[in-house]
């Protein structure tokens, strides 16, 4: 039986803010259920008309996300138990994709070779620096 997605989850889907697995679940459901497309269109319409929901404001402004420094301390096991428990909840139960990405980045810094990282950064720089100051 297909899962019944909440409005908040569908809003997060539109913002590309759910975990990868959840995003894929909704994409699969969208192919099978035209009603789900209508619900998403309804959210777009509601947003277009300027109605707010607390969840999307909370998510957009990342109101409860731990800071980068806290994520780093969490990774090292250097935060108080209560805080660690909350960060765990935020990452796994709420499934905050932005914090998951931040954590994955912090982890990969220990794993990737500096040469690979430098090459990638150089590529980004070379391809974008020409746009500096354009339109200012």
């Amino acid at each position, binding site marked *: 039986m297909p899962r019944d997605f*909440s*409005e908040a989850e569908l809003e*997060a889907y*539109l*913002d*590309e803010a759910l975990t*990868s697995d959840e995003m894929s679940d909704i994409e699969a459901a*969208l192919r099978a259920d035209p009603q789900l*497309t*209508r619900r998403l*269109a*309804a*959210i*777009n*319409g*509601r947003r277009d*008309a*300027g*109605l*707010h*929901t*607390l969840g999307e*404001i*909370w998510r957009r*402004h*990342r*109101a*409860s996300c731990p*800071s980068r*420094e806290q994520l780093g301390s969490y990774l090292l096991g250097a935060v108080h138990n*209560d805080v660690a*428990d*909350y960060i765990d909840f*935020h990452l796994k*139960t*709420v*499934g905050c*994709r*932005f914090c998951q*990405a*931040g954590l*994955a*980045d912090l982890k*990969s*810094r220990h794993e990737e070779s500096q040469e690979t*990282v430098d090459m*990638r*950064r150089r*590529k*980004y*720089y070379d*391809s*974008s*620096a020409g*746009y*500096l*100051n*354009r*339109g*200012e």
Partner: protein
Amino acid sequence: MSASSEVDSLLIQRIRGGDSDAWGELIVRYEGRLLAFVESRVRNRASSEDIVQEAFIGFLNSLPNFDGRRPLESYLFSICAYKLTDHLRREGRRPAVPLSAGSDSGGSWDLPGNQRAASSIARSGERRRLEERAITEAIQEQIDRWKERGDWTKLKCIELLFVRGWANKDVASRLDISEQQVANFKFDFLARMRNIIRKQGLSEDVFPELYEEES
């Protein structure tokens, strides 16, 4: 302002002045998390790097319109999400969604409840930003207070209800509290938000969920 926001703010100032070293520093600071964000969906390193590259170019193109009060990280993630969505649509993975449900929907894009139709309250972008800012500050203040007091259960409860849209009974079960407690936390939170809206003289119509249980 946090130390991190101050660094961002200075970087943006220098980038606006055309400082290429500052641009390099911004890339170093943010590319890793943007790449992890994209790669979790695309599962292909080369394509993910291309999307992040497009996001950086998009950032520079949009810089004249960037509101410095907005956290840089959130702004970069939102550009990246947009580029990622575009990529997934081109790949046929992400179905296109129309802008609204259409005229035959019977106004189905209104939130549940008996609030008046949203189309009748369309208004300026400036007004919308003002409303959003007021609620953001109110939510942030509440979260900071919960964190300070160690009210982690309240924070988790409200986050599951509003950010994830879980039903009261599921939240109660997950947090091992009673449904009545969930209802009480929710009532208090909504009352606080309503109070802020009224105090600031903002339109109540644009926050329908705040008044669902009152109507």
